[in-house]
């Protein structure tokens, strides 16, 4: 979106010479490959691309991307990225964070980068656990999660990243998971969006929270448990046998059975990525009674923060001269005349 010139690159051009240090089998590997596969398709320029991260397993990501990269401090990546973007709006910024980094210690910054609408892609790797600190419950851990810090099971209510993002004012909310073949399409849509694009990526921590997403991500029976949303397409799953309709009485979504191809008759909704009300329902959709809503849940651009900053700067500088000598002598002044024999300095 930021590079007017399409660059010719291959996946290899985006790999660094650094040894990847995630645990063997970690979902992060799959996300890394998906990103490295997507960037050549976008025509991105490595020199114009910046990966900025906080702290945690996911935040090691920049070291493995042959781009500019800034591995900052815990939770603060959105703030650093905001400064980078305001200093150079032409840079294409990818933010990498996790459920602990982005929603616990950095929740405040994530909220503000979203509501300000700073143009960047925000990938939140949600593995529902603190991996790098050896497995404590995170703000997205499900109730009852046993961990070193919650030996008989966690009891605080998990945060819902996509709902948090939308509630913070995000104008793009997407969802995918590490090994999904659809992840690059979600990334491309996020990149095409002008503004803060939030992508929740479910990621399998094979050491501390193994297969916690298998309930919807396991290949077997996936079509019954995954609702892939596409703009202008009916919200169908289970091979088209089921769909999502609006329960007008309850003002809520419901699952309906579809007979044959006649989804219209069943009242299945056509996905409109600009419909914020439906987006609120989609991000709150409880998994179990409903399939997991994936893909682009919401995409309705509004003016970006950096554009507003540039406009404000132009407006407040209009007709003003940047003359330092004049600035220093501003306001009411008086002159002391040189006396005879008084040295001027």
């Amino acid at each position, binding site marked *: 979106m930021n590079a007017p010139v399409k660059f010719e690159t291959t996946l290899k051009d985006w790999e*660094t010479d*650094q040894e990847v240090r995630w645990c063997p089998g970690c979902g992060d590997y799959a996300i890394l490959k998906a990103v490295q596969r997507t960037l050549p398709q976008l025509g991105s320029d*490595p*020199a*114009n691309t*910046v990966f*900025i991260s906080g702290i945690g397993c996911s935040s090691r990501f*920049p*070291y493995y*991307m042959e*781009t*500019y*990269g*800034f*591995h*900052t*401090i815990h939770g*603060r990546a*959105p*703030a*650093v*990225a*905001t*400064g*980078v*973007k*305001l*200093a*150079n709006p032409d*840079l294409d910024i990818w933010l990498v964070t996790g459920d602990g980094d982005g929603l616990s210690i950095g929740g*405040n*910054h994530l*909220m*503000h980068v979203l509501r300000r609408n700073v143009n960047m892609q925000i990938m939140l790797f949600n593995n529902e656990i603190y991996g790098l600190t050896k497995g404590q419950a995170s703000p997205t851990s499900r109730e009852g999660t046993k961990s070193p810090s919650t030996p008989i099971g966690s009891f605080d209510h998990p945060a819902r990243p996509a709902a948090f993002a939308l509630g913070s004012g995000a104008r793009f909310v997407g969802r995918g998971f590490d090994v999904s073949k659809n992840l690059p399409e979600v990334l491309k849509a996020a990149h095409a969006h002008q503004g803060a694009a939030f992508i929740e990526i479910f990621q399998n921590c094979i050491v501390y929270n193994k297969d916690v997403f298998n309930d919807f991500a396991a290949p077997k029976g996936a079509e019954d448990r995954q609702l892939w949303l596409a703009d202008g397409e009916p919200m169908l799953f289970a091979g088209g046998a089921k769909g999502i309709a609006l329960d007008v009485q309850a003002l809520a979504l419901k699952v309906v059975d579809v007979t044959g191809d006649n989804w219209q008759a069943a009242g299945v909704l056509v996905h409109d990525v600009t419909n914020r009300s439906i987006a609120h329902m989609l991000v709150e959709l409880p998994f179990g009674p409903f399939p997991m809503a994936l893909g682009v849940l919401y995409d309705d651009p509004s003016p970006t923060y950096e554009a507003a*900053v540039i406009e*404000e*700067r132009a407006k*407040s*500088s209009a007709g*003003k*001269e*940047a003359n*330092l*000598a004049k*600035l*220093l*002598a501003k*306001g*009411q*002044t*008086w*002159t*002391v*005349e*040189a*006396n005879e024999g*008084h*040295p*001027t*300095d």
Partner: protein
Amino acid sequence: MATSAVTTPQAAAYSETPEAVVVRFAGDSGDGMQLTGGQFTLSTALAGNDLATFPDFPAEIRAPQGTLFGVSAFQINFGSRQINTAGDAPDVLVAMNPAALKMNLAALKPGGLIIADTGEFSKRNLDKAKYDTNPLEDGSLAKWDVLAFDISALTIEAVKPFGLGNKDALRSKNMWTLGLALWMFDRDRGPIEDWLKAKFRTKPDIADANIAALNAGHAYGETAELSGPLKQLHLDPVESAPGLYRTITGAEAVSLGLVAGAQLAELPMFFGGYPITPASAILHHLARLKEFGVTTFQAEDEIAAICAAIGASYAGQLGVTSSSGPGIALKGEAMGLAIMTELPLVIVNSQRGGPSTGLPTKTEQSDLYQAVYGRNGDAPMPVIAARSPGDAFECAIEACRIAVEYMTPVMLLTDGYIANAAEPWKVPDPANYAPFPAKFLGSKNDGDALLPYKRDGKGARPWIKPGTPGLMHRIGGIEKAVDTGHIDYAPDNHQAMTDARKNKVHGVAVPDQDIAAGHAGGKLAVVGWGSTYGPIHQAVNRSRAKGLDVAHIHVRHIWPLPGNLGELLKSYDKVLVPEMNTGQFKTVLRDQYLVDAQPLTKTSGQPFTIAELQTAIEGALA
């Protein structure tokens, strides 16, 4: 400014023809005392007197009317000789209500003049100020001259033609008082009238009412001169170096210095801030200077403010952030990131009383440990301290220079006193400052390889802007390998990088320490830093005039310290370190030089008085 003969406090008493006068305006926080003081300051500056001010106001925005904790005061010391402090004790106290009288009476010089508004000395207000009897009537003010009359009624009378209600009319009381003060010191009302007309451009009635009140106060002085203690005084202009002058507060000076510093570095400036007293004024000033390539960003919190500034520096601008003690504490971890990633950054700390929320509107110098030592790990960072509002301009430029030349965060210390106080300032010529243009790496710096942590002769690494073709690299807070900047936890590497960071900061070129008064060697050196300059300088000069062997040394570069400072301190028999904290710089000096530095501490939220320091000097030499 020329230094004239040292005067004793007695010589400046109001009853004689003084070289300097101290006036304190005190009233309710809603009475507009800061505004009155500010305009009186302007008229004083325009009259060519040297001056120093001390605004002292409560943390509450609108404290309940008439209460003791709601008293707001503005003190100004002005004269026909050099002025370094806001004055120890007022010669004149203007008390707009009983609470203002009670809170400020103790400071008033014996024989000084009290001007009081009898209209506010009602039973109700006396109760609020916890007076059992009316001090204006019970003889308790016998050791002072008292001029008490109904300023409230006179103001209402003066603005009557403008049809304002009593409540609105009374809002002009401060202008009436200002008019009287302008008469007392033979000042021109013109600039104040211009200012009122500009301020109330859209409400000409209000402007006229205020001007009427101002004129009425002035006229009252003229007619009342015949009776009582009120008399007019004219103080000749101070003998100053020729040139163009204006008044400036520390917050303005820091803002202008940062703009100048960015221009000298040939960089756009990015300022990340979060509202906090007394630092917010810098954000407000810079927000109006966008035409100088300034971006101001009001962040969601202190941490975001510094992190965004670091991000902007990473992307090639001059990142700046500013706060006060508690906010600086929040920024600590990010300062470590700037030290680790070796990016330029200026952090302005307008110190206030602490710990925790402490005294938000009162001054203190108690963040020196935090500035020099207050981060995790071995995290060296240059620290500079401004000694006066005008000096803050020079210090801000110096902070920008060190940050850019050494690729390091730099902390600039001011305090609540410097931030709010005003002084005359000889407008500097930007052409007199040597530029220090920032250099960005444009191509690989080691044959075919890029070494993001290869150091130059100063120990600084190259500044590499994202967006530069072919120089992609990664930085971060994890320890990096020498030269390559790759992640490296190896023992020898951490030793080498810790040493490199330390050596770089220790190697920052700092001018040799000069002596502000007196000479090297002798019985006593009084060593100060920051806003104690004024009172120390006056106290040392007065002591020297009495024949005492004492010198004044004032340190700007707190870290690294000037190379000659250790030898200089050792040339004195005794070293006394006055500070508005419990002895922080004293500890640094003892640690660095093994000198027997003795502390003189004050943590009342008020600056040192000259008398306190003179007593301490005499004690040390006894």
